[in-house]
């Protein structure tokens, strides 16, 4: 399976980490707005900044809708389009982990949880020098975290 990209959003809706593994093939340019008509693929060149905002918007609305329908404790795990699969994990502190993979991948919920527990908490939260809040989207700037994430994605997944 292939992992396309990975995002972390903090409780202030700020994208604090994003990582893309593959250069985006043109066919998935329209990925985060596949609900809209996917006409004119690649017509606009969006920056990765816009990407993360779109991903957040999608995930945020979907989550709220799911909670309205299924109760406060409900949450969606992933959704699939014809081009990609989006996996979602949210902690009780409202930190959101999002991973985009190809269609063949199994559920990544456990993997995202592992990333939270073993990588994010260990290397980012427990790092005394890294800020707890990220105003202005400074984000996770932590080599240890990035390296381990890289390894995790390459080896484990």
């Amino acid at each position, binding site marked *: 399976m292939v992992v396309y990209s990975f995002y972390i959003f903090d409780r202030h*809706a700020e994208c604090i980490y994003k990582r893309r593994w593959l250069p985006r093939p043109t066919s998935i340019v329209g990925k985060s707005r596949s609900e809209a008509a996917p006409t004119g693929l690649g017509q606009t060149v969006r920056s990765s900044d816009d990407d993360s905002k779109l991903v957040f918007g999608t995930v945020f609305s979907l989550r709220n809708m799911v909670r309205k329908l299924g109760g406060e404790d409900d949450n969606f795990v992933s959704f699939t389009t014809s081009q990609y699969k989006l996996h979602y994990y949210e902690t*009780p502190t*409202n930190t959101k982990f999002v991973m985009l993979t190809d269609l063949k991948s199994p559920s990544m919920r456990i993997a995202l949880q592992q990333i939270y527990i073993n990588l994010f908490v260990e290397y980012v*939260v427990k790092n005394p020098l890294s800020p707890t809040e990220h105003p202005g989207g400074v984000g996770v700037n932590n080599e240890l975290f990035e390296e381990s994430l890289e390894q995790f994605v390459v080896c484990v997944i």
Partner: protein
Amino acid sequence: MSSNKTSRIGEEIWKTRVDKVNAELVTLTYGTIVAQLCQDYDSNYQDVNKQLEKMGYNIGMRLIEDFLAKSGVGRCANFRDTADMIAKVGLNSDTLKGARIVDISQVGFKIFLNVTPTVTNWTSDNAQFSLIFEENPLADFVELPDDGRAQDELWFSNILCGVLRGALEMVQMQIEAHFVSDVLRGDDTTEMRVSLVRYIEDEMPPEEE
């Protein structure tokens, strides 16, 4: 969640997943910090309380993530659940026992003591409760300064209020916590009053353009 289940979770995590550190090390370290603060603020105990609370707040915000990662609990549906969770799981295994981890943002530590406070004195609207500490490792060997004021003004373990406030803020609950009695002052019990201010709404992304 039933309180039996929560205390079991707490016990389990405490036994298997928490790195332990000598409790006296914690007590002495914490004592030193308070003593230093008293010195820095020229024994202005109100300021010391405030500073301790602030330190705790910064600790709590990080501690909660570790707590969630270890315990794997979901969102607490209501404030009552939360109280139970704090007392049985939180304080037992996670929030309070043999200190571990250095978190130098403001102060420099994270605490996990092994204490199970009792949750009581609920108000009828379920928005306030008290935590009664039978034992408090932070206060072992402690005698408050004998200057006639510390007995009335200093809340020695005030850092715990801050930890609680920081941790709960991260899970969308704004609370206010303060001590109402302390055995160090000669009271019968050590009691912390916790009141829910409000649930924090999800933040929306900033409007585009």
